[in-house]
């Protein structure tokens, strides 16, 4: 099974939020399916931790040369998933299809994933003491359906499928938009963004000069987590070195001890 990827087209999007609503409905369906709460109760609860997809609107410029950017906030499904690699309880899985999934039944609520994520994605819920984020509807995908948001988009601004196909389509669109608007459109996440996150499983077609405003930083990284990772790696090496050193010293001491004991015996014989 190849990597399953998604792409959001910020130019085609009409900001109707059908995707946002669709995601929240699908999550309530999951709650009904696993017996937590039925639809009729779920739809009357806010359940913010299940808003995997949500808009953040910000304004730029000064009237009348001003505009708004609506960031469609979501998980990037990073190739190097720093949330997954830093999770101390191995609750975050990177599936064969590339989807990064938090399994709440394994989550201990430590929120390290929140620390590790440079895109501010996982949401912690106190009531269930677990963190939540988009799981790219892998349950739907593995049943031959599209993710709920992709399925519902009315502007064909969300596409999904095998990674090569999605990247090809996204690049074709980006090229067309670059020509149409006379400014560079890129596919954020199609190539490696940086070492911390790698490529993105959920890419974005966006104007290069606006990408930061869409919540897509050039160098997404949490430096303290990088330090922790380095320290962990270093610590692992250091512990190994210590163990090795201690072992070596022990052999040396053992060898010395044998000599010392042998010398003692020799003295005892002379008396």
């Amino acid at each position, binding site marked *: 099974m190849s990597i399953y990827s998604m792409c959001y*087209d910020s*130019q*085609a999007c*009409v*900001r*109707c*939020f*059908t*995707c*946002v*609503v*669709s995601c929240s*409905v699908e999550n*309530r*369906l*999951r709650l*009904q*399916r*696993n*017996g937590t709460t*039925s*639809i*009729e109760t779920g*739809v*009357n*609860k*806010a359940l*913010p931790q299940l*808003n995997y997809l*949500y*808009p*953040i*609107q910000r*304004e*730029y*410029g*000064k*009237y*009348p040369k*001003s*505009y*708004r*950017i*609506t960031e469609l906030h979501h998980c990037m499904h990073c190739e190097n998933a720093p949330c997954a690699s830093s999770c101390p309880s191995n609750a975050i899985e990177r599936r064969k299809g590339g989807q990064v999934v938090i399994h709440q039944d394994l989550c201990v609520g430590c929120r390290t994933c929140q620390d590790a994520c440079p895109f501010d994605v996982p949401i912690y819920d106190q009531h269930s003491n677990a963190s939540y984020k988009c799981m790219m509807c892998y*349950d739907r995908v593995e*049943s*031959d*359906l599209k993710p709920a948001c992709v*399925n*519902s988009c*009315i*502007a*064909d*601004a969300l596409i999904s499928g095998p990674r090569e196909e999605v990247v090809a389509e996204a690049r074709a669109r980006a090229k*067309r938009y670059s020509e*149409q*608007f006379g400014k560079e459109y890129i596919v954020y996440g199609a190539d490696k963004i940086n070492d911390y996150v790698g490529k993105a499983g959920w890419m974005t077609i966006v*104007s290069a000069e*606006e990408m930061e*405003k869409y919540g897509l930083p050039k160098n997404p990284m949490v430096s303290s987590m990088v330090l922790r990772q380095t320290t962990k790696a270093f610590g692992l090496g250091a512990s190994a070195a210590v163990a090795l050193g201690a072992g070596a010293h022990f052999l040396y001491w053992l060898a010395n001890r044998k000599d010392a004991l042998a010398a003692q015996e020799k003295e005892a014989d002379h008396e």
Partner: protein
Amino acid sequence: MQKTNRRDFLKLGGLALAGPLVASGVSPKAARAEKLPGYGLEKRIPVNCRMCAQKCPGLARVIDGRLIGIEANPHSISPGVCGRSVAAAGMVYNPNRIQTPLIRVGERGEGKFRRANWSEALDLVASKLKVYRDQGTPEALAVAVRFNGAPGLDTEVFKVYGTPNFPGYADTCWANSRAVGLGAVCGPFSKGQPGCSPSKVSINYAKAKYGVLAGRNPAGGLVCYPWALNFGKGKRDGLKLTVVDPRKPSETGEDNVNWLPIKPGSDLAFMLGLFHELMKNKSYEPDYLIKHTNAPMLVDAKTLQPAGMREIEKDDKEKKIKILDYLVFDEATGKTQFASEAEKPALHGAHEVLFEGKTFTAVTALDRIAKELESYTPEWAEGKSDVPAEEIRKVAKDLEQNRPHAFIDPTYRSERYFNSFKMVQVISMMNALIGAFGREGGIIWNHSPKLGKLIHPPKPKADAISKHYMKHDPNFRFGNSKYYRHKSVETLLTDKPYPIKAMVFNGANLLGGSAGGTEIVKALEKLEFTLCISPFFNETTLYADVILPDATFVERNEAINAKYKSEVPGVSMNMKVIDPLFDAKDPYWISLELARRLLTAEEYETHFKPFEVGGMELLWEKQLAGLKGVSDKDKTKITVDYLKQNGIWNGTARPPKPKAKTPTHKLEIFSTFLAGAYAELEAAGDSNSLVATPLPVWQPANWMTTREKLANDEFIPITGFAPINSFTGQQTKDNRLLANVGEAISWDAVFINKSKGKSLGFTDGDMVTIWNPDNKLEQSAKVVLSELVHPDAMFSYYGTGPGAFKNLNKFYGHAPKTGFNPNHSAPYHHAPLVGGHAAHDFVIKMRKA
């Protein structure tokens, strides 16, 4: 309920359904080549979504007997439903719905009711309404219909009852400025009056290269099936847009669209400046103008009357029809001649005309229009509208480069200012000039098949009140005989032409949706009896004597729908998904119960017994038996079973043609209808003659006549739709799923210009009080200081807050507790000549709460 966690579920795997399973038990047809997605546990039932008013076809998902939501029907030509539709479960399973019939116990407006059972409530309604019929004045009852649930039956009950008064909602929407302004140019005409409603023509967004949107936001005023999907396609394929709006909307584009902020109510000035440029640049194809428009028509430069007209017969699809023929100058013969006989009509020039014994100099209509436009330079337009002259010239260039696959949107919800009619007329004239009508990417005719009827009620005896206004009220001369809900308030207050003593609101919210809250409250308090049929609470229900909760669209079978604002014919089915919740009842049952009580036994037997016996199957059969506007071959295909299986049938669109349904059968860039009205009004010394002129002329918005400029604490209240809300409907704003998004976009706030707000001492998030100094109502809302709003404007998303009627908050759980509705504070006034409610055309003041 069987538990299935995520991992177990995956082991079950996905089952592809052979075809949609439907509640009626019809067995699925053999598997189609296309795999319909299914978890294996789901049913999918075709519905015509009613989260907003437009009935987009969709499929309701049901699992374990519960409605999950609605999604696209893949059989539809335009498959897709919006977030409101997806959130249907939030509407249905909301305990804040009206659960039982309610009978008022407090004063009207207090919102105090007691629960009643159906027989008590129905008996009470009947006893109150029978009175007028018994007195021989059934016309004293008016029935306002909007989100009604039993089409084909509910209105018919009251038609048999005998009232002629069914005031439709659209004089608060499009029926005046848009319908008449656009209809005067392209038609169609009905009883001598132009009426181009949004049902008649569509903008071909999908194929357009460039468009100007002023007073129109196709994805904010979001409707999937008829236009939003096409709009999305157009955008994806490179549709370039200029958005003219006092507030910059997001839906048409954010970092990639040209926004021209404009002073509220001055769009007409922008359009005149644009028209000036188009004319100056000769942005037209002479052949198109000669062949398809009356640009060569000779007119008297002073009186604006066509130089000579006559009626001729023309062949039209095996029929003979009468059209108006007009004089032109034929360059081939060098003589003035009737257009039907002219070889080469001239577009320009002044010519001597001899007609009916009189000689005078006449000019071509095109030249006369060009002359009038001379003074409306882009600089002049800038002075009136705040849009820079160079931007206006740029728009003209863009239209020139992209025509004829370009458009200026003639708007939809047009009743905003006193000059909205003139604005739409000028827009329509420009579309005729650049050749947008009947072209790909321009303005194309819709095609809606007609369905048969089960009930044929007798004609009422009395005339509807609208007839009186159209004849006698100078500000309703161009009003619409069907759409006069706003106008009817005048009758409620004045008892002219005769008293209306009771009103039924069938899914209609007069108080929330119509300008003039103070007057409307007076009118509602004056009525002898008020009945609301609605699943949901709204402003008008606060003033109801009885409220009957009908079941929502997913809880009932409903008549087939074929009326869509689309060039592609469609016939669509709505089937019951789940049983009605609480004590809500099927509106078809409610109609029968009302009919049984209000009408004689004989009338019931004749008109309603068939439905009582035959049910929905009978109604559906009758509708399809009477299907018109599709080929005979298609008609045999479209059966009840076909619709149950597929949800919708779609035909194909006709290729676009520059056809006009005007008296001359040409696109009347110089409207003969308006020329006639102008002459009459001039002769009568009526000041509205200036509004009626066929020429493009400036008229101010009403608020502009009251002051030179706004004081620092004054604003013009403007509104736009949020794509997750629907007018004032509880089904969307009191819906947790949609409120989650609404809260993220501040749908309850008022947005004002940041600098202006700061100068008033406001900070973002402050609570402000807003009022119209001419009346006593006060509203409160959170204020957002925004860089995206013209200093004169105060923007709010339409219908999200309770406005001045805070008692509504008792009934809602998720809806915003504060928020502004301009209709509540608006004056009760009518735009000149056309009679729309001019909902934005007044001044409000703001202060910190």
